């Protein structure tokens, strides 16, 4: 691919993520993050050419909500684009913002991912994703215990359960450093065995402690052309590349045949076209959309193209910890905070902050030159974004 021009992330804003944001309405909660992003980019609304907006209508039951939300987004008089692709919405907004700036249509674009799950019925909203004539009558939410079963079959029940709980506790330790995170439980590693028994089961061995939260929150990112980025930001996070890979409507992944995951497929393609031979070495950190600690554990293998039990070892050795060799989710990840329309953008935002050096208490203690962020949604959809500290060649 030959990109028309470079695009840099120059500002990130996040509202506090919480299940309790009843003190603000939707536009007000958006506005919190808008102000923070503008402040970080050293800009005012006058500098913004275009405002992107995304969430899922049926969670809050607002039709074309960017219209009302204009009160908080500041989109009055601006160009706008509204993009929604389910769980991947936030990542898709990043792709669209990248396109709008790289195309030369705009110099500065603000993208806003938003959800106020408290105001609707989240599981009901997810169930409504299913075809009304078929699986809507069978489905309850987005949960399956299948991954837990597979991991236990492959690596033994004890090791698999322990590794997924280690992953979970590592994420909580990261969230404890992030004052924007929703769930910060203060878990310790010696609680692993207790939690594996006492946390209530949801589906199979998927327990409540493993599962992501339902949060209210907004994420805002500001993207700029190379010239504008340099004017406003000492160290932008440059968008090197991104790839979107969806999967068919029906979950044709059950049964006795092997499954190629969209995660591995997307990673292979992305690494190939960016000449990345050894992702664990050449990429400095990853921020993953991990809807549960079982999936987070399993997907490490897919995204990093690992073999055998390497992904379990990375968790067991503490390699994925904030100060480890390959930090994963310094933010605490999706298990800690999950405002769905914003969630996938928070992943890219965190990766960008790690490069920009603005992650504060959850900044990893090494220079991040290359960062990978994943988005997840729909029926096993994936979006990968690759960010770099150095300006990508065109």
């Amino acid at each position: 691919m030959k990109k028309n021009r470079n695009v840099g992330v120059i500002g990130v804003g996040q509202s506090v993520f919480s299940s309790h944001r009843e003190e603000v309405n939707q536009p007000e909660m958006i506005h919190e993050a808008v102000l923070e992003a503008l402040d970080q980019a050293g800009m005012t609304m006058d500098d913004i050419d275009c405002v992107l907006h995304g969430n899922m209508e049926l969670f809050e039951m607002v039709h074309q909500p960017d219209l009302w939300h204009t009160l908080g987004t500041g989109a009055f008089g601006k160009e706008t684009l509204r993009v929604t692709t389910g769980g991947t919405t936030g990542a898709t907004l990043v792709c669209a913002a990248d396109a709008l700036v790289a195309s030369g249509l705009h110099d500065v674009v603000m993208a806003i991912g938003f959800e106020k799950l408290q105001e609707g019925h989240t599981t009901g909203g997810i169930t409504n994703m299913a075809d009304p004539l078929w699986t809507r009558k069978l489905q309850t939410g987005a949960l399956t215990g299948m991954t837990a079963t597979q991991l236990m079959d492959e690596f033994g029940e004890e090791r698999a359960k322990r590794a997924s709980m280690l992953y979970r506790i590592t994420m909580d330790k990261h969230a404890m450093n992030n004052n924007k995170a929703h769930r910060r439980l203060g878990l310790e590693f010696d609680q692993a065995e207790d939690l594996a028994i006492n946390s209530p089961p949801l589906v199979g061995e998927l327990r409540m402690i493993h599962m992501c939260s339902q949060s209210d929150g907004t994420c805002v990112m500001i993207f700029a052309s190379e010239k504008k980025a340099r004017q406003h930001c000492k160290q932008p996070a440059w968008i090197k590349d991104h790839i979107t890979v969806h999967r068919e409507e029906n979950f044709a992944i059950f049964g006795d045949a092997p499954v190629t995951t969209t995660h591995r497929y997307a990673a292979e393609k992305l690494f190939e076209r960016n000449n990345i031979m050894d992702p664990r070495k050449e990429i400095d950190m990853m921020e993953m959309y991990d809807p549960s600690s079982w999936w987070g554990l399993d997907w490490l293998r897919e995204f990093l193209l690992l073999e055998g039990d390497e992904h379990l070892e990375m968790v067991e050795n503490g390699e994925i910890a904030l100060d480890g060799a390959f930090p994963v989710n310094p933010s605490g990840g999706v298990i800690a905070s999950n405002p769905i329309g914003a969630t996938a953008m928070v992943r890219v935002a965190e990766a960008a902050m790690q490069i920009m050096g603005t992650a504060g208490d959850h900044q990893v203690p090494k220079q991040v030159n290359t960062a990978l962020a994943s988005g997840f949604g729909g029926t096993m959809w994936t979006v990968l974004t690759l960010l770099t500290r150095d300006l990508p060649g065109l």
Partner: protein
Amino acid sequence: MARKVGICAVAQTTFQRNKWDQRFQNMALEVLESLREQTGVDFSEKKGIGMSISCSDDVFDARTISDNGLTDLLGGHFGCEEKIAQEGIQALYYGLAAIRSGHVDVVLLLGHCKESQGQSRNMVTHLSFDPFYTRPVGLDYCVSAGLQAQAYGERSGITDEHLARIVVRAREKAAENPLLPDTERVTMEEVLASKYLADPIRELHAYPVSDGSVGMILAAEERVHEFTDTPVWITGVGNSMDRFFLGDRNLGANVALKAAAKRAYHRAGITDPKSAFDLVELSDQYAYQLPMWMEGLGLCNEAGGAKWVEEQGWDRDQVNLSGGMLGGNPLLLGGFVRAAEAALQLKGEAGTRQADKAKTALAHGVMGPAGQFHSVVTLKRD
């Protein structure tokens, strides 16, 4: 300089009151098959469609992530599929940006909507309003349009008779359009006797409920000729958002549309819009909007809408030869169909409604209460 982007092919289903025998996938598939037949395009990794943009709406579809129901036929299985959740004409805006950015060469745009599926489209647009203040007042797009029609009508001297003439002409054109088989001609008397929905808007002043699907193939300039001999170039795009609360706005003043048009004209290098277009397709959801949007686009004189109607300016300026939205397209796809119709005209593929020697065109879409959001696209053929 970013590369040019061309429309290679356009396809539409018919738009009918109630396609009871098809779910939205069936409608969309008709469009996809037509596009593939016209261009020979496929979903192969190297040469095929690199990105599909669905235009659909979760509330109209009553389905979270409405595009998930289309993933299969958008080539989204191990492919890139996106969705815009705005007026459908914005799919061109996103597709244009994606191709100009260099990220993809060939983009499929595919929109669908079944306005007949929900009990009432007004129940849908009612949900656009905030739950605390404007929903309890009972607002929906039709009621909001009534307020705007009053404000604009007063300003530009639009009477009930002007509105009736607009409807009679739109229905005349629609009746000639084979894609609108359910839309029949009406007389002045019928329009003038039609019952009020939201004063001064009468039932026949409103666009009819319809179901249908529309799509396009866009390609980068160096790839366009693989798919068509008659590409239509997107020369300009522009959109703008107005304020949310109706009371904060000057409803008769076309604030957002003027800003959107200015941006599109700037990008297209157009300095005199009145002479720039051979034909125009406007999203006239309600009759008063046809002259109002003409004013906002600078295509007729400010406050000259009434005169333009009296002179039947639509014939001279070749406006809405398709019948426009008053002929019957869904809210969500109005602007998308306008762009499709304009492209067909420039390609010389508009059949019975074909204009003479059209080389340049403008297409327009609108969303939100009383035109809160407008989007303008300018087109040109070689």
